[in-house]
């Protein structure tokens, strides 16, 4: 009982449990009422979406940490020109709307698919993850640099320097690992949500707009590409039909299950990730 009470009070854990339960409930419902091929596609789409998002946050965490620490070292070194050049390039990436940048990346991926550079499904997934990471990692870089600057103003930084502890150790171990991990983790949770949103959107756009050029077989099935399928779109259109004929509502959960399930998975995941991130920030008072 106290364990349940504990979960109820820690909103991040509560919403994580709600997310898992929601997916499990949908899975059981779909297993009973959705046709088997569509259910299989839905499972694959969800799995691939989560897989890409997890690779993105892994890449983002590693690259951001390295880039932020490198920038910090460059800023205080005699290579100030290099620092200016690096921040200039990063600011240019920042000034390109994420979706436009990722669309450019996808254009390259389809080109590499067509000329055979990308052959295995894993390489395609990895290329997609790298593309998305490139346009989301700066958020984490900013956060890490903010944390370093914040702690550098504190006395303990100078005290450690006087004690002869290397700057590398102070930044990586004392500031980031010991004192900023919860901030980094919270940012990664929001990046996970942003990644799912961007990935689903771009896959939807590609499947709707560029489907004549790009073979759907080559790109991994994700929730976005599943939603772009004509039958899924028909299912979503049926929601609008319900506004005119309320008796149609119950049929949504039996006859239009494919599109409704995909849309629900996207929206429900985004909502839960937001709540988890908020709860986490509340729990650690970030």
């Amino acid at each position, binding site marked *: 009982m106290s364990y349940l009470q504990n979960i109820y009070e820690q909103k991040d854990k509560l919403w994580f449990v709600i997310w898992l339960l929601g997916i499990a409930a949908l899975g059981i419902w779909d297993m009973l009422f959705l046709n088997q091929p569509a259910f299989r596609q839905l499972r694959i789409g969800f799995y691939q979406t989560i897989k890409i998002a997890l690779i993105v946050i892994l890449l983002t965490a590693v690259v951001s940490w390295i880039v932020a620490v490198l920038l910090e070292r460059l800023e205080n070194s005699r290579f100030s020109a290099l620092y200016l050049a690096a921040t200039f390039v990063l600011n240019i990436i920042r000034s390109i709307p994420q979706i436009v940048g990722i669309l450019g990346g996808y254009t390259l991926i389809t080109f590499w698919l067509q000329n055979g550079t990308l052959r295995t499904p894993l390489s395609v997934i990895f290329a997609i993850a790298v593309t998305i990471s490139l346009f989301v990692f700066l958020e984490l870089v900013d956060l890490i640099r903010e944390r370093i600057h914040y702690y550098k103003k504190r006395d303990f930084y100078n005290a450690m320097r006087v004690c002869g502890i290397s700057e590398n150790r102070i930044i990586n171990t004392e500031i980031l690992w010991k004192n900023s991990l919860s901030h980094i983790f919270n940012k990664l949770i929001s990046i996970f949500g942003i990644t799912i949103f961007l990935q689903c*959107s771009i896959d939807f756009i590609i499947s709707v*707009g560029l489907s004549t050029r790009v073979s759907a077989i080559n790109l991994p099935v994700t929730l976005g590409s599943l939603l772009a399928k004509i039958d899924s779109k028909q299912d*979503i259109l049926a929601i609008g*039909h319900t506004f005119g004929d309320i008796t149609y509502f119950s049929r949504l959960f039996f006859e239009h299950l494919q599109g409704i399930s995909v849309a629900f998975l996207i*929206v429900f995941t985004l909502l839960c990730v937001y709540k988890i991130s908020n709860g986490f920030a509340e729990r650690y008072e970030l």
Partner: protein
Amino acid sequence: MKSKLLEHILSIVVVSSIFLFMMVQFQSQSRDVEMAADREIAPFLALDFIDYDNPLHRSLLKESMDAFYPGQESRHAELLQKIQDHRAREITAARQQDNSGKGLSAPRLWELFGMYLRFILAYGIVMFLTYYGVQTLGTLRFVQMKKGQTSYLAALVKHVNKCRGADSANWQDCAKTGATLFGKALAKGILYMILFSPAYVLAYSFKTRFDTDSLFFMVVLGVLSNGLLINYANKFYTFLVSESRKGYVQTAIVKNLRNSYLAEEGGIKLGEIFRLRKSFEGHVFHHIFINARYQYLSTIKEQASFLISGLVIIEMALNIHNHLCYELLQNILYQQYDVVVLIVLGIYLVLKTTEILADYWLYFESRRYENKAS
């Protein structure tokens, strides 16, 4: 500010130069490719006795080429495909009357400029509405939190526990209040789902009820969907919370500044929260609010980027004809990369202009609040 402005201008110059160079390159490249392709297929298109719509004619042409030039079967198939592609492109362009697939020309540039202006208009309206919405929702949530209001679901659970021991006379009241709380919780849940829905999910849900191709619908989607409003309202709320914990707030309260949030005790009224120019003079919240808004200004650049991403998604995913981002997608499809680069440059300039304006605004506010000379 000068160094920031210099950096922005340098960035605009460098990126514009790179993009313009790419545009020229793509233009000459596509002209060369087009000319080479045209040279290759022109003699076949001139054969007026062949009806390319007729599969029999196409097969006959291929078999004739295979018979006369043996060993080049794949080349012949490719040639036939090029003829088909060329014809498909011409038909689509004629049907849409939008010159898609013809690269950059003066009328095409003029047409794109019109779309660009419409994009900027939609962007400006959505930016203004979200700026207002973020502050309003953030303030509303903060005031509710200060009033001690819990979520409707938590209130419902509490209410059910309280009503367990109620007698039959109070039962009806209990049920009524319970139903109201449940209805409110449900409405809030649906609202949350709407605010977190990607634009295409929302748009397809309402497609049969509204004209989804209008500027109005685009603006509504831009504000409500993609999680833009809710995420930044939450950010504003956290700024308010962190400001409210600062020492100056406690000092002001000790010095007897008005600090009740209940409207009946001279606190914050609902009308004040929804006002366009928010001001809470004489209340401690006034200072919390202006300090939180100052912090929020630094996130406007990030919000602008997210907002543009949202608008791009709306135009592309909903295939809104004669809109800038739909054109962008079409030109990627037709491999007209000169037009693609031009549109991307246009979008980049919108974002960069917003960044400059946001930096200037922040600088202006900093001078006011931090008493900075430069």
